[in-house]
């Protein structure tokens, strides 16, 4: 057995950075692919019942979806290359264990791309009801595709569906068990709600910003109301799902849990530590709430939470990043959930807070916060799984390749993604500007040329 520092291959650190970066970038677009079609469906259906404003909103959203989908397809292709280019040690050994969900994900992505094309071409061409229902396969394939991808991640957290021989060979592979592993459904539910929160709050934030600038028309009201409803339902359910998902963590990944909770020693019951960092092995700068750590981690006010010092040091994740990311996710999630509860209570009492400037400002902030919460959640679960790629089975050191020059590739990736971000921003801004100027028929990546639409 060699020391980790000596054995660290050239590809490890840049591969980690690049995978984290490109995945973190893609996940925002993936969330739109999962959640946006359902919101378009709602406004489109409303539009078919005679609401012209809603119909126009559906047309515009479908074009925004096309832009986001187009760059999402590109960044998704990047990820499938990266699986092999950055993690040959994972794919070469476990490709046939974890590959099947990816095959089904590819299938559902294909379906979504095709129906997006049909939907965009369908405006003014297909019978209205049939056209509306073209969104249904998109909604379904977005959900199923998300399940498949999350199933792979859940498998990495709790590997099943194979056996290791003493020599380290992978035998008795059952890919279906890997695909439908015990954690997959809950983890998917968590991600699914997160996607609705992200898209709901981000889209609502766009229209809230418009209303703050004095565009207080029906268009902006509806554009705010529909995504806010989706986000509200998701934000209220999310803490419950997250909690259920977390309860089993003490059995499945106790080291991740200890890092989440910043528990150095095993405590019974453990306090909840808000904030704080591990400095020279001691947690500092936190606020402790007695017993709540045990409740959040184990679902009971009396159960113990295993401490970091019970693990060999080489099996521990980077504690501070994991802890900070986990707490950001939970903190933001709680704030958003409380905020929507306040909003709907006020609505129930007859006050629409969306008419208040301060509430609109809060909504504008809620968009980026939802993005931050989702990214924090991924950082928490991914960094918290370290030093393993496949928990307890394959260390990340062994999953990485040994290609020099990865820093160059990563630099290139940073530049290209920066360009794509700027490009997407410029394009989306220019679309809204042209819409505002009264140009309704803009082109879209999958759609027909505008001249044909207006004929």
């Amino acid at each position: 057995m060699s020391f980790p520092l000596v054995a660290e291959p050239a590809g490890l650190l840049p591969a980690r950075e690049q995978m984290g970066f490109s995945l973190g970038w893609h996940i925002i677009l993936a969330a739109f692919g999962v959640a946006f079609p359902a919101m378009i469906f709602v406004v489109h259906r409303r539009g078919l019942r005679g609401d012209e404003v809603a119909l126009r909103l559906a047309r515009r959203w479908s074009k925004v979806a096309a832009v986001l989908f187009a760059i999402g397809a590109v960044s998704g292709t990047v990820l499938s290359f990266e699986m092999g280019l950055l993690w040959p040690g994972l794919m070469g050994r476990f490709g046939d264990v974890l590959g099947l969900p990816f095959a089904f994900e590819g299938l559902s992505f294909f379906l979504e791309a095709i129906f997006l094309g049909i939907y965009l071409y369908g405006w003014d061409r297909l019978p209205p009801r049939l056209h509306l229902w073209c969104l249904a396969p998109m909604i379904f394939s977005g959900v199923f595709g998300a399940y498949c991808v999350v199933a792979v991640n859940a498998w990495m957290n709790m590997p099943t569906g194979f056996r290791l021989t003493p020599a380290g060979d992978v035998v008795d592979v059952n890919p279906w068990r890997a695909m439908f592993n015990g954690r997959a459904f809950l983890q998917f539910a968590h991600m699914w709600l997160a996607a609705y929160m992200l898209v709901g709050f981000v889209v609502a934030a766009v229209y809230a910003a418009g209303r703050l600038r004095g565009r207080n028309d029906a268009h902006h009201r509806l554009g705010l109301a529909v995504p806010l409803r989706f986000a509200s339902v998701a934000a209220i359910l999310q803490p419950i799902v997250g909690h259920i998902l977390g309860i089993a963590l003490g059995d499945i990944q106790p080291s991740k849990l200890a890092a989440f909770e910043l528990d150095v020693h095993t405590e019974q019951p453990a306090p909840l530590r808000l904030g704080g960092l591990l400095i020279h092995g001691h947690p500092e700068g936190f606020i402790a709430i007695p017993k709540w750590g045990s409740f959040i981690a184990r679902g009971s006010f009396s159960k113990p939470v295993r401490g970091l010092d019970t693990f060999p040091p080489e099996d521990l994740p980077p504690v501070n990043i994991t802890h900070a990311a986990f707490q950001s996710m939970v903190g933001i999630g709680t704030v958003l959930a409380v905020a929507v509860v306040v909003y709907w209570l006020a609505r129930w009492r007859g006050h629409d807070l969306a008419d208040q400037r301060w509430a609109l400002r809060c909504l504008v902030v809620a968009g980026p916060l939802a993005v931050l919460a989702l990214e924090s959640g991924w950082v928490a679960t991914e960094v918290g799984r370290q030093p393993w790629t496949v928990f307890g089975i394959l260390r990340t050191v062994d999953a990485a390749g040994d290609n020099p020059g990865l820093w160059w590739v990563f630099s290139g990736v940073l530049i290209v993604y920066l360009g794509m971000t700027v490009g997407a921003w410029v394009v989306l801004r220019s679309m809204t500007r042209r819409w505002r100027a009264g140009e309704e028929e803009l082109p879209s990546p999958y759609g027909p040329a505008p001249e044909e639409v207006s004929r």
Partner: protein
Amino acid sequence: MTLEIAVAAALFVGVLAYALFGGADFGSGFFDLTAGGATRGAELRSQVDHSIGPVWEANHVWLIFCLVTWWTGFPASFAATTTTLFVPLVLALAGIVLRGAAFAFRKYAPSIGQARLYGAIFAGSSLITPFFLGTVAGAIASGRVPADGYGDRWTSWLHPTSVFGGVIAVGTCAFLAGVFLCADAERAGHPPLVDTLRRRTLGVGVVTGLVVFAALVPIRDDAPTLAHGLERQAAPLIIASGLTGLLTLILLWRRRFRVARLSALAAVATVISGWGVGQYPWLLVDQVRINDAGGAHATLVGLLVAVGCAAVVVLPPLAALLWFAQSEDSTHPAPRSAP
């Protein structure tokens, strides 16, 4: 037929679909690049936009399908290839990213300057990707990817078979695209555009055909196993490719563009199949046979289930989309102009 062969066949169908549909898509970048200045090339570029608009991204899915099937069905050989052919794969990927993003952005570009920038990136990267994917095929076919991976990062793909593979990939893509663009431009009723496209496509076709057959000479030394296969079990396919290629040129000459599309597809399909059949039964030539490379059997069965589902669920709507996009373009998009 073993499970491994069945999955390899499914994988190769994906390669073929990507080469044909994705190829026609990539090749349009060549005509976009050579269309001339912003004013002179506007008509041709609008035609390119119009022709590949509805399908351009669906085509990436073929590539994703190939990658996923490869790593799930034949994981060790996949890792061997990615660790050896790291450089061309990264460059091909760079082409895909730049091209996809630039094409999407060009559609919305608010000014001619931005359209020109995105257009140049789109067209340039359209050539990069087929070239480097062609070198990857050449490296595998010439036995330069060792079974355990980490082959030489440079010499594995900088040799005659790979370079010819890259050039042939670019040429066949451009040829396919040219034939399709001719047919589209004719249907849209643009005789001068048809003339330009026809002339260029004929040129591309002649050059590519010559390169394909010229490549057979250096391959004998550089990739003996492949050459042996090409001269024996794959010989009928290579001959068929030559004949259909020639037929396509004649049809182009006689302006029978609609029929030429079919023979062009056949010419490219046979040349790609020639490669596949030529290197059979090797997955990585001289290194790993298909039958020895397979992953777990349960997974191979699962993959075939997924492929079956795809055939049932995906192909009908795909056909509907293509039919839908093709059937309604009786009008022609106006040339791009500055706002």
